[in-house]
């Protein structure tokens, strides 16, 4: 096992793609253990990790997001937020956060959201007098809401790994998402007061009215997802299919910004972004098989249990561990690798798996904004055209708020479990 783990680290360091590292490390294990028959079983395992109903929601929500971007929904969400919050001090910063919150109820991924919003919000905020760095930092932080407010790709991946209900996870993400939004807004209020942030002019009522009317079809999509799941009309996967169909109709017929000719590109983008995730999952399954053969989860669980018996201390250790992992590891990779290991341990401490899922996923999104390896940082810095270092300096306060929220949610599980419990 030691050889397997060190080759894992080594391969990662020389820049071999993470999914291939997972596969190669498994091959190294086979070579070291001399059990060549294990190699025979690998293709089958590779295959069947993907043959899971729950995973279907991933391409569907991605497709819905793509269709909605092209269909003109994003711009309407921003306009709507602008008419609501633009005239406060620090108006555009609030608009950024609120628009991201709305967008999060449609998209399941924070990177896509960061890139999209950076393109629009950073120049807009800069024009009103904010620094480029602060604008990019606000956008990157607000996009963290993407995988927390449902739908969420991270939640789907977690549910598949942990065997929890996707619908329950989605419901559990609503309140944490809102709390995070409030936290960021408070931070903006403080910074706005301190740095005397600009505000825009109040919009005429007529304009507000038209923005509101225009945004209704856009909000229909998240409404259908949430209502469909809570009222029990659809499962998560089905609601994703409905969301796609709806996005399609709204984009083509209502806003008329989506063209038939765009469809192949949309499908292609969906396919590529899906495959990067599912291939990683398939390879992680190989590695998971090796870990299980070596009984690593059981050994770790027993070890954890011997360190502490207190679930509160366990959660503290878990958070610190995950924040450290988040610094260097890709979010999706850490979820698919760690969930099968962490879930048995959490069961030992009688921690609710939905609660655990929300904790893990928030850690993961924080990780995407922490140096040295943070995909969210990289996207924000390149799309927003700012240097990494000043961006990181501006992001710290947002990360501080997120960590505070993370610990509140960790030690007040009710905040996570309350909404799901309303429906049980």
């Amino acid at each position, binding site marked *: 096992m030691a050889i397997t783990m060190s080759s894992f680290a080594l391969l990662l360091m020389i820049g071999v793609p993470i999914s291939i590292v997972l596969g190669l490390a498994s091959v190294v294990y086979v070579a070291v253990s001399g059990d060549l028959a294990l190699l025979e079983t690998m293709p089958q395992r*590779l295959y069947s990790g993907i043959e899971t109903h729950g995973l279907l929601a991933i391409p569907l929500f991605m497709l819905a997001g793509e269709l909605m971007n092209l269909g003109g929904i994003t711009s309407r969400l921003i306009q709507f937020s602008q008419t609501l919050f633009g005239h406060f001090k620090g108006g555009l910063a609030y608009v950024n956060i609120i628009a991201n919150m709305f967008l999060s109820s449609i998209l399941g991924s924070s990177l896509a959201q960061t890139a999209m919003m950076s393109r629009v919000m950073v120049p807009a905020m800069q024009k009103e007098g904010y620094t480029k760095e602060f604008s990019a930092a606000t956008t990157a932080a607000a996009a963290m809401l993407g995988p927390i407010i449902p739908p969420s790709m991270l939640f789907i991946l977690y549910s598949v790994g942990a065997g929890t209900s996707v619908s329950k996870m989605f419901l559990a993400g609503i309140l944490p998402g809102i709390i995070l939004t409030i936290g960021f807004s408070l931070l903006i209020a403080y910074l706005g007061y301190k740095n005397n942030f600009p505000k825009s002019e109040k919009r005429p009522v007529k304009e507000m009215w038209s923005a509101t009317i225009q945004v209704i079809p856009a909000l229909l999509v998240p409404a259908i997802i949430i209502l469909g799941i809570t009222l029990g009309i659809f499962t998560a996967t089905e609601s994703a299919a409905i969301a796609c169909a709806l996005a399609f109709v709204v984009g083509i017929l209502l806003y008329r910004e989506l063209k038939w000719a765009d469809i192949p590109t949309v499908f292609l983008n969906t396919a590529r972004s899906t495959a990067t995730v599912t291939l990683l999952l398939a390879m992680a399954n190989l590695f998971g098989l090796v870990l299980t053969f070596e009984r690593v989860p059981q050994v770790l669980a027993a070890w954890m249990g011997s360190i502490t018996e207190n679930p509160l201390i366990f959660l503290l250790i878990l958070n610190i561990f995950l924040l450290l992992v988040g610094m260097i590891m890709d979010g999706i990779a850490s979820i698919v690798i760690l969930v099968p290991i962490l879930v048995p341990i959490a069961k030992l401490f009688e921690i609710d798996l939905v609660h655990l899922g929300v904790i893990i996923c928030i850690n993961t999104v924080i990780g995407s904004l922490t140096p040295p390896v943070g995909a969210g940082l990289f996207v924000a810095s390149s799309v927003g055209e700012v240097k990494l270092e000043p961006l990181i300096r501006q992001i710290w306060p947002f990360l501080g708020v997120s960590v505070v929220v993370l610990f509140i949610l960790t030690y007040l599980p009710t905040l996570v479990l309350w909404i799901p419990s309303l429906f049980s």
Partner: protein
Amino acid sequence: MKLLNTLSDGVFKVEKAIVIVLVGVMFISLTIGVVFRYFLKMPLHWADETAIFSLVWLTFVGGSMSLKQGQIAAVTMFIDLLKGRLRHILLCFSTILVFGFGLLLLFASIHWITQPTIVFQRSSIMQIPMLYPYLSVPVGLFFFCIHSLNLCVQTIRGVENSAGHLETIVDTVPDNKPLKSLKNEVI
């Protein structure tokens, strides 16, 4: 070598066509499934299974595409610290490992689907031979091997196009259409 590059590009075109069809099939079968179940009260049992098999094919064909495009996530922070010869050697080493891995799994998967017991396996709902979804693994790996061999040769010759995902994410944000689609949603 040029031939290999042409081959890899050609395979990529084929892959593109395949995945576009697969996403279409997945979307249509699931939507029709919902419509039939909820509105016509007539469940279509094949719908879910068709969608799942499409996802499987999508994973292995699309996964090969992501290698070709350098869209596959990697930790590049250490290798980026290096310059010159050492960097080149390590990059060559890592691309050769990727190719070797692909080749090994390709052989393992061919061995797997040619087992006589494979014929006993049928899907639980449509009862189609499992060979059809299983084929996605060797086919995807075959494409993967072509792309990664091409990548190997190019890296050895000093053309670096495997620079991890930072540049690709940036590339995929279109310049002229600010709000339009993104190719790389990672989180």
